[in-house]
């Protein structure tokens, strides 16, 4: 965890800019630095610090799943028996087909996504998970993706909000 005051307004501008598609020019950090009004060196120093503190997890491509052969996806919700959340969540997270695995405040308390080449592949992973964990079908919601309508993960970091950080539970 980083101390609250270690991220200043320029850092927030850097974070906002780095969520846009990176310029395809030979010196992309300089192009962004010019826009923000700082030097290339300062830009890179800030990025390095933000990466070291775990705020930037890396600068990488968002890949289109279908073009790489992943044609099926689903969201699964499980009602997890009391006291077994960590164990069951760990079993599920081990699958490379699972990309997101969250506890949520509901009777169905564990929500995870599976992506695979086809429905068959999804079925196989899900059946294996249910078999391993012993969760009955009546405690499972399998919600296959019919249509991806929007995926645009972008956070707007607001300086004023940042100063009165909310440090409560997530």
């Amino acid at each position, binding site marked *: 965890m980083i101390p609250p005051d270690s991220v200043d307004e320029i850092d927030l501008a850097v974070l906002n800019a780095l969520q846009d598609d990176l310029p395809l020019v030979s010196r992309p950090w300089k192009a962004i630095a010019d826009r923000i009004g700082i030097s290339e060196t300062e830009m890179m120093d800030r990025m390095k610090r933000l990466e070291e503190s775990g705020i930037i997890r890396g600068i990488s*491509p968002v890949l289109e799943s279908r073009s790489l052969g992943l044609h099926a996806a689903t969201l699964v919700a499980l009602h997890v028996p009391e006291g077994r959340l960590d164990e069951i969540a760990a079993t599920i997270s081990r699958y490379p087909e699972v990309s997101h695995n969250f506890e949520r405040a509901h009777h169905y308390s564990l929500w995870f996504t599976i992506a695979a080449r086809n429905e068959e592949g999804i079925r196989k992973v899900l059946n294996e998970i249910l078999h391993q964990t012993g969760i009955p079908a009546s405690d499972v919601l399998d919600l296959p993706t019919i249509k991806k309508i929007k995926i645009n*993960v972008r956070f707007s970091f607001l300086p004023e909000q940042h100063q009165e950080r909310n440090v409560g539970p997530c």
Partner: protein
Amino acid sequence: MFGSLFYPNSTRSVMLDPVDICLLRELERGLPLVPAPYEEIGRRMSLTGDEVVERIRLLKEAGIIRKLRARIDQRKVGISANALVAWKATRPGDSNRGDLLAAFPPVTHCYERRPVPGRWEYTHYTVHHGYSREMVQDEIRAIAAQIGCPDLDYLILFSTLEFKRVPNVRMRENGGDPT
């Protein structure tokens, strides 16, 4: 070996070549923090920086790379509230719920999913992030009011623990070795 990889936006079925696969893997490791990162990636694969840029451009044009951006751990910057909202289907003839929901800028994800008849009638799912649950809740209520969705027809599911969150396509783990 690369036979099942096609450019989705192309009229022809163009295969990804092994250099593209190698490039995607390098990019996935993260752009290096050097002044000329594309050149540096090129050096690792015996390409020039210009060739790397051109290949990325073509991969974007083909719809394989959607964008190159920073992955951010928003919780570390105070954006600690995360809600998945499940919305019930609209009445017959009202088929554009997904597009309506997706049009709200704070919505980061919007999916249509197959419900479980009799047990779970929700068909549309959106994801919302914010500095506090109150802010996220207010945002969701405002959206519901604007699209005319009654309170009983949507469900807010706040996350309480994050066990895993990685990109849904990872060349190395689940996308790069088609058989």
